[in-house]
């Protein structure tokens, strides 16, 4: 009789395609993708990233968090018969049959150098560091390129007008992959512009809560040192008791 698998073994077995790579014998549906022009047969339910790994690529560039947060795996692709270039993150885009793709793992865009503490919160800051922003021709190519579906052109226009709130809000989910800048016919650096706008907004729009100021002051005055020194010396038994009896703040 086959030995009964433990719970841990069953969990590991069910996840093995994710943890050790896909095994061809488990796959029913296949598609053909073209990596820089060369054809590979890959399982249909993989992402561009995992499909390339299946095909034998070991990434040392063009990969980072693998979950859509870091912007390292920008990819440009075209579907067969379509003239249009699409953009996406390799880790977040499922492969499609007859997809032609290339990764763009680096964008040589220049970031301005500034000291946020020395700036005035006024509309000219963006123009001062990124004068090129005035060249925006409102073609919306950046918006179409954004894998986060942000309204890039709108935030650029807002930044140009010195509307920090709109620029910050609209650009907040930016993962700084640089695809906007790579596609921009006016050669703006949208994602760097957005970074400056957000920092200005965050730094100067919101006063520090009074209670935070007070708490930092109390800590600097060593107000809690006595009780903290006491608890640092508490035994495990004492800690268990205090933990069990601690009050939970009401919802």
């Amino acid at each position, binding site marked *: 009789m086959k030995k009964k698998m433990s719970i841990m073994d069953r969990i590991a077995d069910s*996840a093995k*395609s994710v*943890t050790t790579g896909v095994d061809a014998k488990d796959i029913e549906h296949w598609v053909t993708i073209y990596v820089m022009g060369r054809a590979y047969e890959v399982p249909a339910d993989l992402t561009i990233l995992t499909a390339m*790994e299946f095909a*034998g690529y070991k990434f040392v560039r063009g990969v980072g968090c693998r*979950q859509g947060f870091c912007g390292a795996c920008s990819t440009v692709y075209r579907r067969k018969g379509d003239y249009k270039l699409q953009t996406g993150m390799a880790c977040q885009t499922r492969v499609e049959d007859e997809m032609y793709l290339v990764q763009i793992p680096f964008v040589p865009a220049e970031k301005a150098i500034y000291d946020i503490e020395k700036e005035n919160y006024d509309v000219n800051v963006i123009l001062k560091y990124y004068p090129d922003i005035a060249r925006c021709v409102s073609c919306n190519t950046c918006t179409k390129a954004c894998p986060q579906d942000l309204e890039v052109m709108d935030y650029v226009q807002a930044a140009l007008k010195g509307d920090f709130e709109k620029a910050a809000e609209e650009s907040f989910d930016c993962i700084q992959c640089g695809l906007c800048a790579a596609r921009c016919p006016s050669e703006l650096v949208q994602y760097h512009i957005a970074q400056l706008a957000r920092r200005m907004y965050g730094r100067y729009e919101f006063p520090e809560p009074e*209670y935070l100021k007070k708490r930092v002051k109390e800590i600097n005055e060593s107000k809690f040192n006595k009780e903290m020194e006491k608890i640092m010396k508490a035994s495990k038994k004492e800690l268990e008791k205090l933990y069990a009896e601690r009050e*939970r703040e009401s919802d």
Partner: protein
Amino acid sequence: MAEMKLIGGYPEYMRESIKKVEQTRMKRKDYTPPAFTPEEQKEVLKLHPDFAPGGKRKLSIGPNKGDKGPAEVLDLLEAYPLIEEKDVDLSSADYNTEILIIGGGLAGTTAAIWANESGVKTKDILLANKLRHGDANSIMAEGGTQAADRPNDSLLRHYLDTMGGGHYANKPDVLNALVNDAPFIMQWLLKLGAIIDREENGDFLEKWGGGTSAKRLHSCRDYTGLEEFRVIRDEFRNREIPCIEHYPAVELLTDGKGRVTGAVLWNIETGEYKIVKAKATILATGGFGRLHIRGFPTTNHYGATCDGVVLAYHAGAKLRDIDTVQYHPTGAAYPIQIVGYLLTEKLRSSGAQPVNKDGEAFVFPLEPRDVEASSFIKECYVKEKGITTPTGLRGIWLDTPLIEIKNGEGYIDKAFPGMRRMYNRFDIDMRKDPVLVFPTLHYQNGGVETDPWGKTNLDGLWVAGEVSGGVHGKNRLMGNSTLDTMVFGRRAGISTAEYVKNNNPTLKLTLKHTKEYIKQLKDAGIKTKRRAPILLPDYRGKAALARMIDVFQ
């Protein structure tokens, strides 16, 4: 056979279970299962991957000889170094720096800024990254950062919550540093221009975290780590601190007598090495999710391969609490493309409820992570009340539509744009349908032992962030990891700055410690081809690998 037909992202049989979830939703709206008693917690924890039989062994060499740890970690500690003295020319250094920082996530980047802030010139600091600057777990942190700043909260509460969550194994002086510096870190983030969620009156919008007794979680939508890291990296770049990318450390350098004197970096594209000589070295290399301990999927980034712990151990550093691993209760279990990805705990603190296949709420949603994760395993594999996906994974529902029932329409778009975006890509509307979750490998609880300033037992070596051990004990609480990186990144930056200003040690560059390490391995009878650090995991297809030959060597 045609591909499976999906309705709103789910196959029909999963839809049937979703119907049951819908039927019980309004009843569950005002009902939360009670929290476990300490005895019940203990009982369910037996199912936790840390305590379930198997998966561990005892370490056979080094300062922690005899300690138990996960087999996957021990495989790397009981592996041969990548390089030996004969492989490299140590007669001169390519970089001669005061402070070398290895790893550019939140901890390493914060350390660089604070070293500079403390008087070390930018040219005397070097930040080395394995991938790009910022390819780190930090940037993926979703939920938030804890800081006991509100009047009805206290450092003591934060300390006690963390201590209880960590099963009283936390190192007291290091934990004290964490809670003590937290409010200051929030102040620093504001000064840098981070945009932190606010109430209408300007107060921070503070949320619950699992295992906390007060609302002290500060978030930036569900992109907390991204926002924190973006402003910190921008500040780092404005200071023009030297930074090199795609240069992992393959070994630390020592003087042969226990002092760390720099590192050997390796160009991951060309294969060329560089020698860095440094008065102080800070390891900020993150954790080990990509080791897939016990075969679990992970939330971690591509480079999370335990490098720092391996390098430090080669040089003779002490480790602690390496026996425990954090599994985040809510990793995505469906669809297959996102399995293991993180679904922030903030979903539960905003009202989403864990529910089984029959639509029953079966656990208090905000137990500490190890307890919550264990209860999901129990529901799926003991009570058989989980939902099985088309690829054979099991999971339970996280009833996300409850979030908008409790907080009003539009709330998910505002608070969870990252989650929404991820599910939208697979045609799942998490405002209307629940999402399927199962525990996923999330965090290295232990690591290299430190004092409250990040200093290790070795002269010249500091650590900060996930690579360190002690502050979280045996189980980290939500919102304490981003906090850890910034508190101890800053402390390591300040401490190394002070050290390099006041000390002028002779910096001999040797790899004698690797020779000694190899001897220990041999004496312990370890015969293996394993070499470490591994730097990157390998997901290449088996068919492609089977036909690979290397003709350039």
